[in-house]
């Protein structure tokens, strides 16, 4: 039962002056595939390295299978890790690379051979076993790095951006291999990535981290299943981080509050109805309204109650199967992005009136916390 | 958490480690005790601190990182820093051949001095009984008192016998001639009398009482047992002096303050050669750097000039002087330049009919040193310049060629400006090295020809370090003065390295 439990984990440098991670509480269940995502520098790698023991834990508890391992050196933790740079031992062949840890564990020759060959077979590395890392392609090295941790049969797999050095096609292929591998071994895994798609497709659960803001309590933003994060981000940070292109945000104020639905007025004067529970708020509160480009409707007729916003088309990105239209709107500094399937009738500099279905809207209070949504989203 | 891990460690190999540490510590403590017993407090204390530190580092888990650094730091502390500080220390003492011991040791030597008590004398007769001998001693002042010693076997080592009253000797009495044969063995015999007094042989026919010349007084003073005269240590000169003010050797080393440095400034016999040597050291190091850098740069451009097809061969052959150990090349030159038997003078005589006096004429000796050192030093500069030249981008030369520039123009406006910055720290380091190029001077001329009219021995081609060496180990063993000069050199070298550090930093900034 390789369960990982983090309790009030902190990481600070310079003797507690600069914090990188603060109050991380997390429970990773046995067999679960968890992804850490967050912008660069938010401490994903640091957290991963604390779990495997390469980085000291400043305070808090780390439990592996129910025992506290804060002070256990990495070589005793029985975890496997795949580094971004692969970190294959250049002076050893693939076979020696994979056997290194087993030899240190004083395993018998036969068993070592058996394990190495089995892992090599499953990763299609058998013909490469006697090569040195220098004579291999990036994808092959990647597989060796994975094989090296598999043979150890660790309690826990850790991956630090393992696919970021590969080209796009190979990345997709390796992603599927990783998914298959996890299905087969069912070992608890933690996966750090920049790539949302990797996180969304591979992970059972996603952990969103943010760069620690001045005075913030924690930089753990939200933990949840991929679609949960997508549909119900608990705050502005997660809402803007998950999903591509980014969610559109409008500043607005509350006209009517309610448990089932509310009414907001955008700063430009447009009034909209939204299905969010704002019973905790007062009329007149400043709020932020968010809607994903994919959730905007381009048939204004279909959204009832006149939930419409008008903007001027700035540019159109035509991708073939879909198009993104960038609208100018006084309430958004950057651009109001709308996804449409058919953009043939649209021209830049023309006005575009889009529908904003009440059930597709996200609403956040001034502190950035989400008001719960009350209806499931509606699609075209 | 910690307890079970420690217990496990103790079982698996950690026990061995503890045993090893204990063993080493025991050995070191034994040595420390020995040092302490001999009054070498400084040594004992230093070693004690280092031992304690080492033990802590190798047993404490907290000091894990230091386990890797401690051994090399120990090397640096013991063989760079300690000698440095020790040299500073000696510079303020009169440590030297005349004052080499410690005060404690000198006191012991004085206390060991024995004189004969002239009033007590015993005539001796030697009796032999097979291999055993006995002495019969007759008190000369009182003929009735006769004593016989226990029997002993004569040997070339200290022998103790006791004597009892009466003549009870067995065997036959030996003649004077046979006594003389046993002279050296008898010299090793000490006789303890009934009253506890101890007799030794004082002449061929007599045994007498030896008493220590001095007994200890207060405050390191010694009292002459015969005259009652008090001699006291003079802590400014490092000798015991008697009441008449005469110094009684051996001397001990004492702190003399700035005296050694004052001698460098005030004693004409030292100051003049010192200044001459200092100037020559600067000239020697400066010219060496200039010559080697110029030749090295020239050769570096030549061996990298592409039209010169066979440049690879030149490169290897030109590096040769650097590959041969310096002590061998220098001695080869010493032989070749030999005034009477050397090949160089033979060739010069054959060609021009001259035999320059390389080793007796100061100017020629200096010229020879510069020739040899340039020969030894240019390959290093060449190697460096080769690297630096490669780093200058080719397109600079291509651009200037398109402008129709000449090679001289290239050298002045492209090569040199690009070299100056990176070369400066190297030139300074080379200067510092040659400033202390002891091996060259010592092996080639040994400082000679010698200057005349100086109060310490000094040579015309001496540089500061070789002068220091001579002062310390050849002429008079004046360690104190030598260390004072060494201290000055330390300061100069320190200054040069400070300049160098700044030059390097400058380089990194641009």
């Amino acid at each position: 039962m390789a369960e990982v439990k983090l309790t009030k984990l902190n990481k600070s440098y310079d003797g507690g002056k600069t914090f990188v991670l603060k109050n991380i509480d997390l429970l990773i269940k046995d067999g679960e595939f968890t992804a850490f995502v967050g912008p660069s520098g938010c401490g994903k790698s640091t957290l991963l390295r604390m779990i495997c023991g390469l980085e000291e834990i400043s305070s808090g508890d780390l439990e592996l299978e129910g025992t506290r391992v804060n002070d256990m050196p990495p070589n005793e933790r029985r975890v496997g890790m795949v580094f971004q740079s692969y970190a294959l031992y250049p002076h050893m062949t693939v076979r020696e690379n994979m056997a290194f840890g087993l030899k240190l564990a004083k395993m018998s020759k036969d068993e070592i051979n058996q394990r190495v060959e089995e892992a090599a077979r499953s990763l299609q590395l058998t013909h490469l076993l006697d090569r040195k890392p220098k004579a291999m392609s990036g994808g092959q090295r990647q597989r060796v790095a994975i094989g090296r941790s598999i043979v150890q049969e660790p309690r826990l797999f850790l991956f630090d951006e393992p696919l970021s050095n590969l080209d796009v096609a190979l990345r997709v292929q390796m992603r599927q291999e990783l998914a298959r591998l996890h299905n087969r071994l069912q070992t608890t895994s933690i996966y750090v990535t920049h790539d949302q798609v990797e996180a969304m497709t591979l992970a059972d659960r996603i952990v969103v981290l943010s760069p620690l803001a001045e005075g913030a309590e924690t930089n753990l933003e939200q933990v949840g299943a991929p679609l949960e994060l997508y549909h119900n981000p608990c705050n502005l940070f997660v809402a803007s981080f998950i999903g591509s292109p980014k969610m559109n945000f409008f500043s607005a104020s509350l006209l009517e509050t309610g448990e089932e639905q509310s009414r907001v007025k955008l700063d430009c004067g447009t009034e909209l109805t939204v299905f969010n529970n704002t019973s905790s708020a007062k009329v007149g509160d400043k709020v932020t309204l968010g809607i994903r480009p994919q959730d905007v409707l381009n048939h204004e007729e279909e959204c009832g109650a006149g939930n419409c916003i008008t903007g001027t088309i700035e540019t159109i990105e035509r991708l073939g199967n879909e198009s993104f239209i960038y609208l100018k709107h006084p309430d958004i500094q950057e651009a109001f992005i709308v996804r449409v399937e058919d953009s043939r009738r649209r021209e830049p500099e023309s006005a575009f009136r889009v529908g904003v279905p009440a059930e597709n809207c996200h609403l956040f209070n001034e502190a950035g916390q989400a008001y719960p949504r009350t209806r499931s989203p509606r699609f075209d | 958490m910690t307890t079970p891990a420690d217990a496990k460690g103790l079982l698996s190999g950690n026990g061995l480690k503890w045993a090893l540490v204990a063993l080493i510590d025991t050995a070191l403590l034994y040595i420390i005790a020995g040092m302490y017993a001999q009054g070498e407090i400084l040594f004992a204390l230093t070693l004690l601190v280092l031992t304690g530190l080492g033990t802590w580092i190798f047993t404490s888990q907290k000091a894990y990182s230091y386990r890797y650094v401690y051994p090399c730091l120990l090397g640096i502390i013991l063989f760079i820093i300690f000698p440095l500080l020790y040299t500073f220390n000696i510079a303020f003492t009169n440590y030297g051949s005349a004052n080499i011991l410690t005060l404690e040791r000198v006191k012991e030597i004085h206390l060991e001095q024995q004189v004969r008590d002239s009033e007590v004398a015993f005539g001796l007769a030697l009796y032999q009984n097979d291999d055993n001998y006995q002495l019969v001693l007759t008190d000369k002042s009182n003929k009735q008192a006769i004593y016989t010693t226990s029997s002993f076997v004569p040997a070339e080592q200290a022998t103790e016998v006791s004597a009892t009253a009466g003549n009870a000797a067995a065997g036959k009495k030996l003649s004077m001639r046979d006594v003389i044969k046993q002279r050296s063995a008898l010299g090793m015999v000490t006789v303890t009398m009934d009253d506890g007094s101890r007799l030794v042989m004082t002449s061929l026919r007599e045994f007498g009482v030896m008493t220590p010349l001095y007994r200890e007084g207060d405050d390191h003073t010694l009292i002459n047992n015969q005259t009652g005269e008090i001699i006291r240590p003079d802590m400014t000169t490092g000798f015991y002096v008697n009441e008449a003010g005469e110094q009684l050797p051996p001397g001990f080393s004492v702190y003399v303050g700035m005296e050694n440095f004052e001698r460098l400034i005030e004693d004409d016999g030292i100051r003049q050669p010192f200044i001459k040597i200092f100037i020559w050291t600067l000239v020697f190091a400066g010219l060496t750097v200039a010559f080697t850098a110029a030749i090295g740069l020239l050769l570096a451009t030549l061996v990298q000039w592409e039209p010169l097809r066979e440049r690879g061969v030149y490169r290897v052959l030109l590096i040769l002087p650097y590959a041969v150990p310096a002590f061998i090349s220098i001695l080869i030159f010493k032989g070749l330049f030999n005034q009477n038997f050397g090949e160089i003078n033979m060739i010069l005589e054959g060609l021009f009919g001259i035999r320059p006096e390389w080793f007796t004429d100061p100017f020629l000796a200096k010229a020879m040193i510069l020739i040899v050192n340039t020969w030894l030093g240019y390959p290093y500069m060449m190697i460096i310049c080769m690297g630096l030249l490669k780093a200058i981008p080719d397109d600079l030369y291509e651009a200037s060629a398109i402008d129709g520039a000449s090679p001289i123009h290239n050298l002045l406006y492209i090569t040199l400006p690009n070299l100056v910055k990176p070369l400066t720290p190297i030139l300074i380091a080379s200067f510092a090295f040659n400033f202390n190029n002891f091996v060259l001077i010592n092996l080639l001329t040994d400082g000679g020809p010698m200057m005349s009219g100086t109060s310490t021995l000094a040579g015309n081609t001496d540089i500061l370090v070789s002068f220091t060496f001579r002062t310390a180990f050849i002429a008079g063993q004046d360690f104190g003065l030598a260390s004072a000069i060494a201290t000055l050199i330390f300061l100069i070298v320190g200054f040069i390295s400070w300049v160098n550090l700044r030059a390097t930093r400058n380089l990194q900034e641009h």
Partner: protein
Amino acid sequence: MAMVQPRNLKYRVWAARLCMILLLCLVMFPFLMIVSVSFRSGNFATGSLIPENPSLEHWALVLGIPWEAADGTIMQPTFPVLTWLWNSIKVSLITSALILALSTTGAYAFARLRFRFKDHLLTMMMILQMFPAVLALVAFHAFFNKLGNFIPWLGLNTHAALIVSYLGGITMNIWLIKGYFQSIDNALEESAAIDGATPWQAFRYILLPLSVPILAVVFILAFITTIGEYPIASVLLQGADQLTLAVGAKQFLYAQNYLWGDFAAAAVLTGLPITIIFLVAQRYLVSGLTAGGVKG
């Protein structure tokens, strides 16, 4: 640069070639001379580069074999050259091994471990290596003189004292090895730690094998430096049988007893192997040498 060639290139190449050859004559003269002298009979110059009646007398004497001269007198070897050579090799090998061990572990700590005063210690080492041991000869002499009273095998005139006193010469090597260690990805050792290696095992099985090139360079550098070291050896060693070659070789050329021919043979015998080692390893040594300043 190849594209930019002036018209009179051919003459320039020949002029350069001529200069080079003249210069090489000057550079090679001492070496050729010394080889020639070693095969010449007698100890005095005869005036020709190629010996007129070559003889092996100097070689025999240097190798410790008595030599019977033409007139029937037997010449005995004057100095125990082979003993000196053996002393030199022994001292240099042990010293280099110790220097290698000390500077490797030290460099590992400086490159990889975190501890207090690290930067200060590094700067200190940088500065200390500027001070040559020649300046502290008195201290070395006094130090080992006293030490000999407590530990006789570490006193004056012992090889152990000499070896130990050379151990100060590790600062530059620490810098060299440290630089190399730092060029090796730290993730390799971290990966080894995850694979179950203790820090020592990671050092031993991962870092060391990857650093063999620099370790070889440091070993050879230390060997060459030690075998040519003269000042400390000349102060610490006294007995004729204890001398190293660097100290002993001088004795051939005392004015009272001038053994030019014997010296030549000894110089070739001992200089040649060192020179060959140097030239073979030259390519790898140069970087180390240029970083380490001037050769002594």
